[in-house]
């Protein structure tokens, strides 16, 4: 049952992710990205990580993508025009970089996920305490330093955005 749903959601995720780069209309691309984020949330639910799934939908599919759409609509982007002038080596470079990335991700998956050490937080263990409590416990004890560093990074980004957009402070 879980395998069936995993395959279903995984297929939707991959297809919608491909549509993001294949579709020519920027609005349609953005909507495919929403679908991708949404189906990734579905994968989180299959892993018993309901809290992460809800946050994924609220933050990515809800807030960030609405802002993307907002900007695309404001700029009123036309359908992307195919670039006619192509450098002869462009395709070769693109394919080689893509293959390089694929190899990198593949080796990480092969060595780290399939044969590496398993994490201690299994899905069964998390669902016993409740996903939200498990995350909060880890986030505010073992991982509190990265958590705080992330918040400093976000504040720096906010300050940067304000400095860039305000003409006079």
């Amino acid at each position, binding site marked *: 049952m879980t395998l069936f749903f995993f395959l279903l959601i995984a297929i939707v995720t991959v297809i919608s992710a491909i549509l993001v780069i294949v579709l020519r209309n920027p*609005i349609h691309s953005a909507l495919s990205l929403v679908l991708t984020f949404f189906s990734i949330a579905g994968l989180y639910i299959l892993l018993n990580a309901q*809290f992460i799934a809800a946050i994924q939908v609220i933050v990515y599919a809800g*807030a960030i993508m609405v802002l993307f759409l907002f900007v695309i609509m404001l700029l009123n982007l036309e359908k992307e025009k195919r670039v006619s002038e192509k450098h002869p080596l462009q395709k070769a470079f693109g394919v080689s970089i893509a293959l390089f990335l694929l190899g990198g991700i593949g080796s990480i998956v092969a060595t780290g996920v399939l044969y590496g050490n398993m994490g201690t937080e299994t899905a069964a263990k998390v669902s016993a305490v409740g*996903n939200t409590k498990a995350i909060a416990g880890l986030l505010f004890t073992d991982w509190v330093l990265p958590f705080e560093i992330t918040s400093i990074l976000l504040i720096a980004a906010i300050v940067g955005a304000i400095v860039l957009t305000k003409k006079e402070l």
Partner: protein
Amino acid sequence: MLEVVITIGIMLVKMVIVLSVVMLMVAYVTLMERRVLGRMQVRHGPNRVGWQGLLQPIADGTKLFFKEELTVDKANKGLYHLAPVIYMGCALAIYAVIPFGNEIEVLGRVIPLHIADINIGILYVFALSSLGVYGLVLAGWSSNNKYSMLGGLRAAAQMISYELPLGLSIIGVLMLTGSLSMVDIVNAQEHVWFVFLQPFGFLLYLICAFAEVGRTPFDLVECDNEIVAGYQTEYSSMKFAIFYLGEYMHIIAVSAIAVTLFWGGWRGPFLPPVVWFIGKVLAFVFFFIWVRATYPRFRYDQLMRFGWKVLLPLTLLNIVVTALVTLII
């Protein structure tokens, strides 16, 4: 095997009942709105179709159903048809996690009166309400009309700005409960309703809820004197009706969430729980109509300034104070 069939059967029956009750409530809330607005403006309102106008919603529905279906020539057809579905679907799915009564016993079987009790109930509601915006934004964009477009853009900016304080305003309740499940939140209010412990949080929630469903004084999304009817300008017949129904479903949904989080859910003396729940929700709907008849509309820059510079700091302050108080006690 039989057990599985019975469980699925009970689920389906509950879904059908909730769906029909919500649809019925939406139909009669439209009548209630028109009658109450009429009384408040010292006129009668629609009272001709049936006794006291009780058949008016059916007449309206029939009219909208038989009206000509128009599609704008240069519209982006797929999204144009999809937008109302997204808007209403998101509103409807919220009702899945709202507990509308205590457990009842039917033929020796205990049936809890909610469709689903998921452990992130309230986050599920916020996720759906943040997805509902797509209905408005896409309707505005795909109609290929500048007024629709402006309405859609306004909707996007307004929802993003008010979602944040809306989410933060209920953190106080979550701190008192220690759970995100709607059923647990109602159970935690057995002795005292959270509105008495979190009066400030409730007020902030209410203001943000008005903005989130786009009602007066925050109805800039469909501000008729500036942008015709906003995102729904180019919609007619049943597609328009679906937007209209979706709006009322949103109103009833945010009322039901307010009741669940702050007013004790289905709890109340003497009367059966379901009656208490529906009564409280209708009281909130009445409040929505009352505000509509009383207040003028915000200006758009005022709306944005109010959301970011007043509501957001106040909700954060509410969280800090609640945290300090719970720490001391």
